[in-house]
């Protein structure tokens, strides 16, 4: 039995091992074409020019293979030729944060090598690259290495210039790709968007080769004023990998925002230290494609929520990364934006009546039988400050504007280094229970969110990102009941056991 287990374990380990490396095999370009025509043309186009049917509805757009730009490659910075391995890995594993999936579950290994041969032919790459990235000896991540990497990251604005002080890629200037398309620096705190994985070695490779066709340069190029030695490259790679360790990762099992009960006053600012002690819950957001003008090219992909309440009010802190603070009317903001600029925004959606059974309102702004409250915050323009509005809706065609101040709904926001924090307050109860949700502790309250990045592709109105329903729970204080009951039960057990032991001992005695 144990030997079977051992074999299984060994096979598993070997499989893991093999998954990590790919040995180049000769591919047959003609066979590759057959597979390409069935699987790849939809996005990459019949001639590999990245002009398939999906072209305008993907962000980032599909890769144009005829350009010869291979962004994710491990050949020397001076040689644009990709290794077969590089292309193979992209096909096998896909590119995180894009529509490119990994194909290993649908295509055989040889199929993928055939595709490599065919895809390469679009840019007429025939001979393999002469030189490879020089990795030297890998420096393992450590506090010192990360510290040194941070210094190099910031020195002379080396990486900070585009990626920002916190690595979130908050924009200070417009970037564009070779084809003139708008590009954005990577938000380094979101490891799930690293196209070639966030393993330090892969990060090293990106910094060393640069990213072809974009403004991300090679930092191994001796001609660069910002050149780094091999050792320094490892330090920066370790630092970048460390940026990804945030508490704002999505945990698919955590679908409940737990609001802690607070004695006394609630925090009055988004920066209040007490928020740090509150558990953050992060959700993926998806573009809105269910009603009105649909939207396919979002920039935001997550929202993080914390909540607290006291005997009068509930407070919700919404936090999401946005590379641009969008201020319509402000010159520098308008320059950074993809015109037309609109305000940034965020919205919370709650059912007017907390459902007793499973039936919730339709997640897209409610339905005729189940209306929702929407708290919609907008960041303001050059001449006007932030606003919060209250909407009651029964679907996106039946919206009633209400007076936010009238029910005590308020908001306060801050923006810094590529992150918005918006704090919303509302009294637990209002005078109109038929129109406003009445918060009750201990109940699971459906809640959904939406966000707008006013500098990205004109996000406004129905063009936004959103979540489906999750839960908000005002955590009730447990009181002493569980502890007292537990003590009684334990006592009963002690008594029972002693009685048993005594009665067992008697006949013997």
């Amino acid at each position: 039995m144990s030997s079977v287990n051992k074999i299984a374990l060994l096979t598993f380990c070997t499989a893991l091992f093999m998954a990590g490396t790919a040995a180049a095999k000769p591919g047959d370009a003609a066979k590759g074409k057959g597979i390409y025509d069935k699987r790849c043309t939809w996005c990459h186009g019949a001639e590999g020019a990245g002009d398939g049917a999906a072209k305008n509805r993907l962000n980032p757009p599909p890769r144009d293979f005829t350009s010869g730009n291979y962004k994710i490659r491990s050949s020397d910075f001076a040689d644009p030729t990709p290794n077969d391995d590089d292309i193979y890995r992209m096909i096998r594993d896909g590119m995180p944060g894009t529509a490119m999936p990994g194909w290993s579950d649908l295509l055989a290994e040889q199929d993928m090598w055939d595709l490599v041969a065919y895809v390469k032919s679009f840019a007429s790459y025939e001979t393999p690259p002469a030189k490879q990235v020089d990795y030297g000896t890998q420096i393992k991540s450590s506090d010192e290495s990360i510290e040194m990497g941070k210094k190099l990251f910031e020195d002379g604005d080396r990486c900070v210039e585009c990626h920002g002080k916190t690595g979130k890629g908050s924009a200070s200037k417009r970037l564009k790709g070779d084809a003139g398309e708008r590009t954005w620096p990577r938000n380094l705190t979101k490891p799930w968007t690293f196209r070639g994985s966030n393993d330090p070695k892969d990060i090293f490779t990106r910094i060393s080769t640069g990213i072809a066709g974009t403004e991300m340069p090679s930092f191994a190029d001796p001609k660069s004023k910002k050149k780094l030695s091999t050792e320094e490259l490892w330090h920066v790679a370790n630092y970048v990998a460390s940026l990804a360790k945030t508490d704002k990762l999505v945990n698919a099992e955590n679908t409940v925002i737990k609001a802690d009960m607070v004695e006394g006053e609630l925090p009055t600012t988004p920066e209040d230290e007490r928020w740090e002690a509150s558990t953050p819950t992060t959700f993926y957001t998806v573009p809105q494609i269910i009603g009105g003008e649909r939207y396919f090219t979002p920039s935001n992909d997550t929202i993080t929520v914390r909540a607290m309440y006291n005997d009068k009010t509930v407070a919700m802190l919404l936090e999401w990364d946005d590379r641009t603070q969008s201020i319509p009317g402000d010159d520098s903001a308008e320059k950074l934006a993809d015109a037309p600029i609109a305000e940034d925004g965020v919205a919370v959606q709650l059912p007017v009546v907390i459902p007793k059974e499973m039936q919730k309102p339709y997640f897209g702004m409610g339905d005729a039988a189940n209306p929702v409250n929407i708290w919609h915050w907008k960041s303001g323009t050059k001449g006007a400050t932030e606003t919060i509005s209250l909407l009651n809706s029964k679907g996106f065609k039946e919206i009633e504007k209400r007076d936010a101040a009238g029910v005590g709904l308020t908001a306060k926001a801050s923006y810094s280094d590529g992150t918005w924090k918006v704090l919303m307050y509302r009294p637990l109860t209002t005078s109109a229970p038929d129109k406003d949700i009445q918060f009750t502790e201990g109940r699971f309250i459906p809640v959904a969110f939406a966000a707008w990045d006013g500098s990205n592709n004109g996000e406004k109105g129905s063009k936004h990102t959103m979540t489906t329903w999750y839960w908000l729970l005002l955590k009730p204080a447990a009181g002493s009941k569980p502890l007292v009951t537990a003590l009684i039960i334990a006592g009963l057990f002690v008594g029972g056991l002693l009685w048993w032991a005594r009665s067992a001992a008697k006949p013997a005695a």
Partner: protein
Amino acid sequence: MTQKRRIPRLLQMVLIILGVYFSFILLFDVVLGQLIPKSLLTMYMLFVVAGVVMVFTFTEEGAQELVGPIKALVEDPSKKTVRNVVFVIVPLLAGYYTYSSMMPSFEAPMELRTIHPAPPTKFKAYGKSFNLATLENPYRKFQKEDPAKFSELVKAGGDVYIQNCQYCHGDKLDGKGPYASGLNPTPLNFQDVGTIAQLQESFLFWRIATGGPGLPAEAAPWISSMPVWQDFLTEDEIWKVILFLYDYTGRAPRSWAHE
């Protein structure tokens, strides 16, 4: 029977029960990646424990041997130290269990739902009424009659798919599109034999045209994120995309003719 020292029967029983428990966890949570609901696991384990106890106490000696160590623990004076330890641990465990089960639970409520609701016989879309029992894909006939035309129709369906459906259902039709992880319930996997291969094309047409809001009342909770595609696609486009779904996955729709 050998006189070798075996594992005590009581320990054997406990090991088997624990083994089954962890196998469930391993199979569902790790291998299949499908979290097994706690209530379901409790129910399974109840049967497992009952079954194992029955097997172990099937014969009189078996039962004796099982209870032996427990009786010895209480009665045998030489086991005093072990007894004292057990007498401390058991009440503590009982107390802890009571405490943790009485603490309010913050786990999300379970949402059971019907995945394949029974279709209505008639439904409304595009301002007219469709009869699901007689509705057929007007393009299906070209598969035999005019293969060249058919493959053009499939291609047109593929374009519709990639511009509208892949975001959730994925390039590979496996339900793992770029935005799939933001949705609950997750999008349907058309590669799975349990999905479109089990359905008639008319059922697909109904699900696509009317989307999540078109689900019948018994499919509550009403949480499907499927858009109402009659708002965005023509009837024609839906029929073509259905051709594509079957063609790409290499599956055939069920038809009335064979039943």
